């Protein structure tokens, strides 16, 4: 055969490059039940569709050539449920998938090609941080800056999975993504505990520094948590199903179950009649959305706000709700950040937004003011006002004060209220105290009389009379109502594509 020697060398070199890091490291991972980079890619893509870029890439330093297969990252393109995506899968067995010149160049190539050609990007991340000695010295760190581009326009969706120790550049890649899932046991931090212990004399458990609880409950940096590598990849695939390939496309409609209308019939039993009683808004959402279609986003963070991707009669939407079960549904500073970030996601990828409000207002008080509540409310409002996707605001029970506006009241394509709606500048009982300086304990009779007076013009019909609510609806009609409104406000002139004025919004919300 012609070129026999070259062919043999090609096969040998290909095989060696695909072997990743040392057999010892690979065996250790396997024993711990953790997948390697190539196994993760195999799990992600449709069988046989992976088109690798940079198999023969090596460290820029010749002395590291033999230990730098792929320079620590498996990059390329592949199909996920039939859709072409760009992929960067960190290979921790090769120099800890540390950030270095060729390693970064490969990832940038995939990101740039995906953005230019309209494909989503999936990052399966681990990263030991900047590579030593590559980043050492003035020229080392200087060179990093010449290559790296950190800001990202939301042209195509980016979904990241934190699947191991992820520091420095790897952490930044995740933060810059639209959605992040984190495996329990993984760590996301600027710097490892070894560096922090030296730099600031602080010893700590990496899980405290950047574990899943820290990020799902404290910082809100991750959108979901998974138990295993397999669950992480499954979450990435599911999340992608709600998003279009790029900002100029819409998510295709899907089939929905024939019995999808059943749950909403029982919706009146999910909400207490007494106005001061709490309930779990997530049950209401489950009744409104197509069965099994709700994908919670940041469900462990700022629980007053519920944000989720879901489908209504096969159409992908973003749902933003207040949950009376937590803090009575009073929006706190963290929930403002959570909602603002979610609006950015929906607006960037043409997902209509449905607001479901049952809130006594913003959570006022010392703690909130210290946490910059006024600024957070305005960031939330800026995102809302700048967004151009269809928005439908629905009031379930109460919606008071500025929170009425922030939850889309009068700020959406259409505003409606269940017949149980109660809308005012503040809770009537508080209003009596403030407007008339009367407390219930001082003069119960007068307090009740004034409370009746203040409550007088606050019903659903009082918002409908001046046509500020465009409809008053029976809660059992919610699904059908939303479906019809989504048809009406379909942005057909642009094929459902918005103006994306939030595409350059900062990442960490």
């Amino acid at each position, binding site marked *: 055969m012609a070129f026999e020697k070259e062919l043999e060398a090609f096969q040998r070199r290909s095989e060696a490059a695909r072997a990743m890091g040392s057999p010892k490291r690979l065996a250790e991972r396997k024993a711990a039940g953790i997948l390697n980079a190539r196994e993760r890619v195999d799990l992600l893509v449709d069988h046989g569709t992976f088109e690798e870029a940079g198999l023969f890439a090596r460290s820029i330093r010749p002395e590291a050539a033999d230990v730098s297969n792929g320079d620590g990252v498996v990059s390329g393109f592949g199909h996920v449920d039939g859709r072409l995506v760009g992929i960067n899968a960190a290979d921790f067995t090769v120099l800890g998938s540390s950030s270095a010149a060729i390693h970064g160049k490969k990832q940038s190539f995939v990101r740039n090609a995906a953005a230019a050609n309209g494909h989503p990007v999936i990052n399966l991340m681990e990263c030991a941080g900047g590579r030593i000695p590559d980043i050492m010295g003035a020229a080392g760190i200087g060179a990093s800056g010449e290559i790296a581009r950190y800001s990202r326009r939301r042209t195509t969706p980016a979904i990241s999975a934190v699947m191991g120790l992820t520091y420095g550049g790897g952490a930044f890649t995740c933060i810059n993504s639209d959605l992040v899932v984190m495996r329990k046991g993984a760590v996301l931090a600027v710097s490892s505990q070894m560096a922090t212990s030296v730099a600031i004399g602080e010893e700590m458990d990496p899980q405290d520094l950047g574990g899943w609880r820290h990020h799902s409950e404290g910082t809100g940096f991750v959108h979901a948590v998974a138990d295993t590598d397999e669950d992480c990849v499954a979450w990435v695939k599911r999340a992608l199903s709600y998003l279009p390939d790029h900002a100029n496309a819409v998510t295709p409609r899907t089939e929905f179950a024939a019995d999808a209308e059943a749950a909403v019939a029982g919706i009146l039993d999910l909400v207490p009649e007494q106005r*001061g*009683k*709490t309930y779990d808004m997530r049950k209401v959402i489950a009744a409104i959305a197509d069965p099994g279609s709700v994908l919670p986003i940041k469900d462990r963070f700022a629980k007053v706000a519920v944000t989720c991707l879901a489908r209504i009669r096969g159409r992908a939407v973003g749902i933003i709700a207040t949950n*009376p079960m*937590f*803090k*009575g*549904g*009073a929006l706190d500073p963290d929930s403002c950040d959570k909602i603002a970030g979610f609006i950015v996601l929906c607006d960037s990828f043409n997902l209509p937004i449905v607001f479901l409000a049952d809130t*006594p*207002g913003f*959570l006022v*008080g*010392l*703690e909130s003011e210290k946490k910059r509540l006024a600024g957070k409310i305005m960031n939330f409002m800026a995102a809302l006002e700048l967004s151009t996707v269809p928005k439908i605001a629905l009031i379930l029970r109460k919606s008071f004060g500025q929170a009425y506006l922030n939850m889309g009241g009068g700020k959406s394509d259409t505003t409606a209220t269940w017949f149980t709606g109660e809308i005012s500048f503040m*809770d009537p*009982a*508080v209003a009596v105290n403030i407007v008339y300086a009367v407390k219930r304990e001082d003069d119960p009779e007068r307090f009740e009389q004034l409370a009746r007076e203040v409550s007088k013009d606050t019903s659903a019909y009082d918002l409908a009379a001046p046509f500020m609510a465009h409809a008053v609806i029976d809660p059992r009609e919610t699904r059908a109502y939303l479906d019809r409104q989504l048809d009406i406000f379909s942005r057909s002139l642009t094929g459902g594509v918005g103006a994306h004025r939030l595409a350059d919004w900062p990442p960490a919300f």
Partner: protein
Amino acid sequence: MKQQKVASEITGKVWKIVGAPGASLAEDDPILILESMKMEIPVSAPLDCRIVEILVAEGDTVSEGQLVAVIEA
């Protein structure tokens, strides 16, 4: 059995104490109910547990993050 303290997530007034020391609770069962923002807001058991001590009385004002009960699980 390990003891832990339960904090209030919101500033408000203790309206009703539901669980007495010694009572066994399932996760999400209310320990006490606060009144705040004119809502009845439960402070619930974070997991299946037994109440060891209630640290506040009805009518007390509690602030966000204040410890209100000791439980063991």
